[in-house]
């Protein structure tokens, strides 16, 4: 049942990402908490939401260029982290989350390859629409547009649960097999999250991005040290 829920969430996100609306509902910052909530662990989804959003901040659809499939990657990572945390009985912790990232992030690249298949499928739909219009079936010709939503939905709905299932099996095995790994992996999660912030700043391509990033970092870090805020 959890896999069906994750499939539905991932499929709808893949549709919203390009085919319909584009209202940030498929961005990691929204999708990860939704996936976590749908699987019964909102906090687990929230743990990975901000790092993944910043990590894939530059994943945008410019012209005909295909970005990585950040929605597919996010659904698999959030789903995998939540399910693995549940299998371990610990909930979604940083060490579980970083392993989910390491296992499932490459799915975003697989998703980009799958997007090429989607484009080829859509090209056939467009050709068929032209043929239908030539045969005076105008209604059928324009309706073909909506069939373009099916393949992105299907691909994400299959691949995200597969990635999450792999994480659900592998993560408990790693953490139970190497009990001392949890502490270093926890630090690895924070190192990844901090790197993701740098990746976000770099992706913004502002003229003075580097200076703004490091100045804001310094000021906020000093404020945190002075006032002791930003604790979880």
């Amino acid at each position, binding site marked *: 049942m959890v896999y069906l829920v994750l499939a539905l969430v991932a499929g709808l996100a893949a549709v919203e990402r390009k085919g319909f609306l584009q209202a940030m509902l498929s961005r990691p910052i929204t999708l990860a908490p939704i996936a976590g909530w749908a699987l019964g662990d909102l906090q687990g989804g929230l743990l990975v939401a901000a790092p993944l959003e910043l990590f894939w901040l*530059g994943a945008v659809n410019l012209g005909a260029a295909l970005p990585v499939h950040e929605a597919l990657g996010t659904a698999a990572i959030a789903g995998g982290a939540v399910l693995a945390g549940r299998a371990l009985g610990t909930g979604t912790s940083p060490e579980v989350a970083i392993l989910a990232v390491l296992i499932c992030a490459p799915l975003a690249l697989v998703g980009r390859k799958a997007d090429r298949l989607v484009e080829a499928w859509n090209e056939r739909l467009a050709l068929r629409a032209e043929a239908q*219009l030539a045969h005076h079936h105008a209604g059928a010709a324009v309706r073909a547009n909506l069939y373009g939503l099916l393949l992105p939905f299907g691909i994400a709905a299959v691949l995200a649960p597969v990635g999450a299932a792999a994480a659900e099996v592998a993560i408990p095995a790693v953490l139970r097999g190497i009990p001392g790994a949890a502490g270093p992996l926890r630090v690895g999660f924070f190192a990844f999250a901090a790197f993701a912030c740098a990746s976000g700043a770099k992706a*913004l391509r502002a003229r003075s991005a580097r200076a703004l990033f490091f100045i804001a970092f310094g000021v906020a870090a000093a404020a945190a040290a002075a006032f002791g805020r930003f604790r979880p």
Partner: protein
Amino acid sequence: MRAPAGATPPPRVPPGTLRRVFWRCLFLQAAWNRRGMQNLGFAYAIEPALRALHPDPARREEALGRHLQFFNCHPYMAAAIVGGAIHHEEKVAAGVEPPSQPLLYKQTLQGPFAAVGDGFFWTALRPFFGALAAVGALLFGWAAIVAILIFYNAIHLALRIRLFRAGYEKGDAVVAEIARLGLPVAADRLRGAGAALCGVAAAVIVARSAALAGLAAGALAAVAAALGYAALARGARLLPTAYAAALFGAAAAAVVGSFHGSR
């Protein structure tokens, strides 16, 4: 000049049909393909308007065929072109413009509008809100994400509706309307603000890391951010660098832990 008595008024698309076209604009990229790009989406969006304007099936099919030709634009900015294409189709239906005019309008504006839309929405407004939501989520949890998402979509949908209306009501004059919005200047500011927000997010993560796993962990996270930025600036690929950052943090923590353990 007054129309002669008994003359048919120029055909207009009813408001309900315009709303339907706008709704269908949201599916513009449903069947994006390399050959015609958003051609099928454009034809799907404008079809209700063509049905209202061309009761004769042969003329309607001819009009639909025009809009099945190549089209590609930013999905938000395309609302202005769909509106403008209806503006011209009304004139074609009234017989005051040749049927080639809507196509010419689309061909002229799609490139410049795509550049403006990509530059403002995709590389400035949305990443800025993404970074803002990330900082909000780190500090205040899911409620911040919901609030920021509502704010983003209020802006995004208001602009999309305004562009559609401007295109429909003003036709070619929509260019001046878009120029008035000053999007490129706003984009520069949003990108800068977004980069600063990423810096704030990094500080929150470093502080949290130090609070949860010790000062050394916080320092390692800060180093990962600094080295990661330097690596990306030198052209390093994103995913391998992310793996390196995570493994660097974990390995360094293991080494530090082993020193502590050996004392």
